[in-house]
């Protein structure tokens, strides 16, 4: 397929996932900030913004409204849900002949709520549910109508790379404030829709370690870090399409595989010793893997010179 279209598919996957994950993180964090009297609102907002990659100068006042603006409503802030939905639709617009018609319409009607003014009038927490519902519709439509060809693999690759990146941020926000103890981890699990599954797996025993293990390492829970890494590897594997005698030739594949191994083949204790640093490493891996995929698949002719066969 065309390199440009492949790139669009990858970014549709990323932006749609980013919108959903941002909604999940905000849902949990705003609730937490409002409910917990002990939390200093300004500090909590600042640290959440920092985790999402927004630095606010110390002279500026930051409260819930400012934070919601940056992460939900502001169409010009690259961290906001509005921006992610707009960017997903803009990518889709350039790949319109490749998307199934229902998928394009699902993306377009979602986006249309923003210029039409509906979006900015939706309040928290209603808006978080709305975004999750719309994303569920987009993903469901994609699942039901897209061919499982290369374009699908790029869509999946984008989705799972983004999910890794965002789950790592969600885990990081939790460990930042883990003075809250198990209850904080519970809300993180809830944000991932993982609480019930977690209880079932752990027979009702709630500990911080068990929660972290579940979110990081569970192989069959779809929003865990390791599961998302596995799926990203799977997509890269299908894209490469050749049987290998030894090792991996694809740089992105190597990066992601190495990251997964380093999570899976270490003791939990070791892993939890410095969780924020570990999560940052995961984010760096996602960025590097994206760069490698871009070089190999999206650069077209240039890739030939770069990737001698």
């Amino acid at each position: 397929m065309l390199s440009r279209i492949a790139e669009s598919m990858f970014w549709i996957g990323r932006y749609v996932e980013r919108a959903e994950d941002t909604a999940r993180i905000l849902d949990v964090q705003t609730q937490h900030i409002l409910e917990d009297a002990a939390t200093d609102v300004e500090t909590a907002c600042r640290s959440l913004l920092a985790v999402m990659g927004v630095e606010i100068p110390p002279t500026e006042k930051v409260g819930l409204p400012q934070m919601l603006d940056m992460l939900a409503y502001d169409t010009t802030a690259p961290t906001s849900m509005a921006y992610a939905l707009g960017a997903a639709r803009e990518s889709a617009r350039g790949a319109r002949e490749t998307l199934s018609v229902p998928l394009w319409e699902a993306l377009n009607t979602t986006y249309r709520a923003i210029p039409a003014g509906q979006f900015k009038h939706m309040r928290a927490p209603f808006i978080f549910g709305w975004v999750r519902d719309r994303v569920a519709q987009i993903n469901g439509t994609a699942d039901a109508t897209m061919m499982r060809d290369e374009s699908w693999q790029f869509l999946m690759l984008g989705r799972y790379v983004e999910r890794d990146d965002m789950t790592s941020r969600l885990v990081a926000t939790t460990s930042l404030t883990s003075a809250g103890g198990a209850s904080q981890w519970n809300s993180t699990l809830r944000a991932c829709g993982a609480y019930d599954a977690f209880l079932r797996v752990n027979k009702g025993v709630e500990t911080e370690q068990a929660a972290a293990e579940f979110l990081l390492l569970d192989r069959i829970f779809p929003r865990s870090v390791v599961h998302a890494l596995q799926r990203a590897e799977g997509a890269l594997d299908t894209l490469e399409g050749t049987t290998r005698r030894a090792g991996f030739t694809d740089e992105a594949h190597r990066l992601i595989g190495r990251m997964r191994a380093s999570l899976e083949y270490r003791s939990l204790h070791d892993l939890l010793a410095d969780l924020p640093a570990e999560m940052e490493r995961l984010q760096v891996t996602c960025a590097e893997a994206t760069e490698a995929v871009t070089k190999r698949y999206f650069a077209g002719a240039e890739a030939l010179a770069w990737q001698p066969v």
Partner: protein
Amino acid sequence: MSQIFDAYETRDPAYDEMFVGSELRPPYQRLGDSLGRLSASELISRVEAMQASYLDQGVTFDIGGEERAFPLDIVPRVIERDTWATIDKGVQQRVKALELFLADVYDEGKVFDDGVIPREVITTSSHYHRAAAGVHPPNGVRVQVSGIDLVRDNTGEFRVLEDNVRVPSGVSYVMTNRRAISAALPEAIAEHRIRPVANYPQKLLAALRAAAPAGVADPNVVVLTPGVYNGAYFEHALLARTMGVELVEGRDLVCRNGQVLMRTTKGLAPVHVIYRRIDDEFLDPVHFRPDSMLGCVGLIDAARMGNVTLANAVGNGVADDKLVYTYMPDIIRYYLAEDPIIKNVDTWRMGDASSREEVLDRLDELVLKPVDGSGGKGIVIGPAASARELEVLRGKILEDPRSWIAQPVVQLSTVPTFTDGSLGARHVDLRPFAVNDGDKVWVLPGGLTRVALAEGELIVNSSRGGGSKDTWVLAGPTSSRPSGRGQSQGQSQTQGVA
């Protein structure tokens, strides 16, 4: 009983296609009855549903960077079978003549030697490209797609307003309009037998494949678009999707050793036929505008070497030149030995001293058009222009007479159109699309009806705020049955299938 047509007034002397006085014309009887059964509020809610669905589907047109839903009017335009048969034949004749003319112009130029048209008319045209001279398209076709604009004069006769054999646009709306009207007026659709329009992409693909370079058995066909910010991007995407081919931008292509290749995830893949939706001037910075980022370096050389086919061919613009238009009746007689089936609109060339004198005397009664304009740009309608505008125009004509033609104000026919909550007579034209695969010129039954949404406005281009109508070509004969306005009750039993 509904009154939606009660306040409708025709605009004399323009030909109204639906009504003569208060009587429905025969082709519109069924439609008039069917619409008459709708209340005004029902009609409004259907119009709103239709507009919302266009926005959701992204059936849009860019005007100055803003994405708008392409305005579709709810009242279809009906063309009866026999009238269409004439249009069909007339368009075929015109395309055949244009093909022969272009082949001649870029080769021997017999048409000049035989005195049909002066050579300088062609060589002074801004659309004449030497790069196209001596190129022989693989199956001889230069005009894979044409959109010849027709209007109906005050007597109802169809006339050719202009030829478009470069990159005519609008066919996607023909297809989406039909689907939208089927949803909005299911009763009316069911009561008519309408010739389908949905097979256009297959016809186009067949014509493009037939134009592949010699020796290529399974050609890779692509659609070349300027990108998402182009006004007609929606159409480019729709055509690529419905033909099942890639939609490429200039940056997706690369030329190596006279071959055109596209950048894919698996390296470079050869391209054989390019249905390009980019004007000649932007195709290749080597031959044309060096600042163009839309095309691809080396494209023209690859085409000249016969390794890739550009459709439509480069240089077709000379046939769109409005000065060449004035010679078309002679050109048709010269190549085909037939009289034109569809006449031109009467036209004066400003290059002729005697015509110029006459026209300059009555500028305020005529329409003046720049010969290389498109999209309604630069047109001055005398009766609507101020004295100052006419003075400026006079200066321009005297300065460069070759660049202007004059025509009488053709009052384009009218069809009832829904604007601001009521039905009013609005002027329309018709662009039938024809596809030439080298064996046959196929005319899409219907084509794009464009409608000027402002009252009295005669320029219908979408870039000037025009809308469109679904255009129904009836498959069966039209029975003549007297029917007055709003006589809708008790007809339904007699109205099965025609």
